[in-house]
């Protein structure tokens, strides 16, 4: 196993997919010669050329809309939205066009696009460059939503996303780009809808995804010192998500905490909690507790943003609460 950075794993998945299938093209602002705002696409323009890697004008609605149109005509475009916050400009193409075409047209067509969108805070970029909006997309029938936490998952899920005939929101936390992790010698595609047990434990299940995983691991370590054995489920896919996997863990631990960076209210965690309060009700020995960002825009000042972002200590407090 070599070590690879998260951002490099994404770049490698793009490169391997482009190598494997000439129909894969990349569209995005500054992704070409410049290698992308976060360097994720570095070298791809040079390697695959201007007929495969397209620097897009600053027009996000057209970006996703043309990707969808190209997909309807046989290509497999991967569109990069520079910051997930800018998805606001492309919602029609994502939600009303790409997500619905297969169904509305009675199964005649498919829209195999991937929309890559970096989310997350921690870099003092302010309220319009930090949002985690995945819950919106998970609510839209026809979309698939994934959010990897490790380089191996980043690679595997992106390969699956690009191979998928359906539109996929592929969400990458920008704080992870530089983070190194183990990378298999022969990396594999990872199916949608399968969670990964990031840490086995007996006392409480923590469900998380994306960069929050690392805070969860830190909290689990601290909890272990207090004699609490935490199981961590990294969802990886948010739509579909691994309900059976979460339920199986809950059936062992009987306690559930859901942890994510996104705003807690009406976030992804709400759906997990709601399902477990239904299908997992008989397994529950304690309230289901969610830990997410408070209900406010991402603040700029470093001290405000640190207080805003959900962290290990808030998670630990929630773990202790459900253990009490």
């Amino acid at each position, binding site marked *: 196993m070599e070590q690879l950075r998260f951002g490099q794993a994404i770049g490698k998945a793009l490169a391997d997919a482009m190598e494997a299938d000439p129909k894969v093209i990349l569209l995005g602002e500054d992704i070409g010669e410049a290698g992308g705002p976060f360097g994720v696409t570095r070298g791809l323009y040079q390697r695959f050329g201007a007929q495969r890697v397209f620097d897009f004008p600053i027009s996000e609605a*057209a970006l996703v*809309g043309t990707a969808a149109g190209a997909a309807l*005509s046989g290509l497999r475009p991967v569109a990069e939205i520079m910051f997930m916050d800018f998805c606001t400009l492309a919602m029609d193409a994502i939600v009303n066009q790409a997500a619905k075409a297969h169904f*509305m047209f009675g199964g*005649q*067509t498919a829209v195999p696009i991937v929309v890559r969108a970096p989310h997350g805070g921690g870099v003092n970029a302010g309220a319009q460059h930090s949002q985690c909006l995945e819950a919106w997309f998970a609510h839209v029938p026809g979309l698939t939503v994934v959010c990897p936490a490790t380089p191996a998952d980043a690679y595997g899920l992106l390969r699956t996303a690009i191979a998928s005939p359906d539109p996929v929101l592929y969400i990458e936390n920008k704080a992870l780009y530089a983070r190194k992790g183990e990378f298999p010698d022969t990396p594999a595609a990872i199916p949608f809808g399968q969670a990964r047990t990031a840490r086995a434990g007996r006392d409480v299940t923590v469900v998380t995804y994306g960069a929050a995983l690392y805070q969860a691991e830190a909290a689990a370590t601290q909890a272990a010192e207090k004699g609490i054995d935490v199981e961590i489920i990294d969802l990886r896919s948010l739509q579909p998500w691994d309900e059976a996997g979460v339920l199986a863990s809950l059936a062992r631990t009987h306690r559930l905490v859901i942890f994510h960076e996104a705003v807690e209210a009406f976030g992804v965690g709400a759906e997990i909690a709601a399902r477990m309060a239904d299908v997992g009700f008989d397994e529950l020995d304690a309230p289901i507790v969610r830990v997410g960002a408070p209900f406010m825009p991402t603040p700029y000042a470093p001290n405000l943003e640190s207080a805003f972002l959900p962290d290990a200590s808030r998670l630990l407090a929630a773990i202790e609460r459900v253990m009490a």
Partner: protein
Amino acid sequence: MSKKSTPARSGQDTDMLLACYRGMLRIRKVEQRLSKLFADKEIPGFIHLSIGQESVPVAISRHLRDTDTIAATHRGHGQALAKGIDLTGFVAEMMGREHGICRGRGGSMHIADAKLGMLGANGIVGGGISLATGSALAHKLAGNGDLAVCYFGDGALAEGIFHECLNLAALWSLPVLFACENNGWGEFSRTDRQFCGSLERLAGAFGVPYRYADGLDVIEVTDVAGTLIAQMREDRRPAVLECRVERFHGHYEGDPQKYRDPAEMALLAERDPLARARQALTAAGVDTARFEALEAEIEAEIDAAVAEARAAPIPDFAAASADVYAQA
């Protein structure tokens, strides 16, 4: 409003005009039947008829291949029919049947026939613009000589996506024909109260060739569209075609159009591309019997399609709900 009718210059011209007339008549008759089926509640929801606007898709489609793609609008029945959509599948779709081209899941605003390169009708004004532009990108990269046609109404001119795609198509030299069916109205409001730009000058601002044609005259539209499309097959660049047409019916079927000036309505008959073509054909010697035969032929086709659609089963919910994703 000029009253000169299209001169039928030769036998060949007459054949072509007759073919155009037939295409327009077929759309007209189909939509008149849809209007009746809607009034009889055999078609649910809401439908937008293109009666008065038939010349544009008929003229454009004469220059299209099966592999050329089109993005259609909410007022897109004519666009679909002219591209060659199967009539039974089309009518059955409106009627919400399993044999509908979209298995009853889409309806009038989401008619699509993938085999014919239809990127779908669209319920979002301007929604098809970026789809067509993207499709043109695919054509360009495939190097197949195909092009994409983007139909849109004058109301869609105000949407930002038009600007974004006009830029992209010009910047990247994409073979997309932006075909504006300008009927002067967006729903219940005159377009001149909604949009004050000149389409010609907008196209010019991006260096995109622009041509105007009077939708009253199907031959004029055919000629102008033909010139643009021939050029596009050659140089693989975008173009804009604007056609003035009239919307005879309401915005949606059942709209009483109280907001329209009766005097203006009274003049509509003079702006009917079918009447105009028929006049020219008559002048060229086509006789009543021929017209009657045409009508009968089309009515028979429609009767058969409607009968078949009526006989078709309604769709199965479980099957529909299992078909949200293409991935098995």
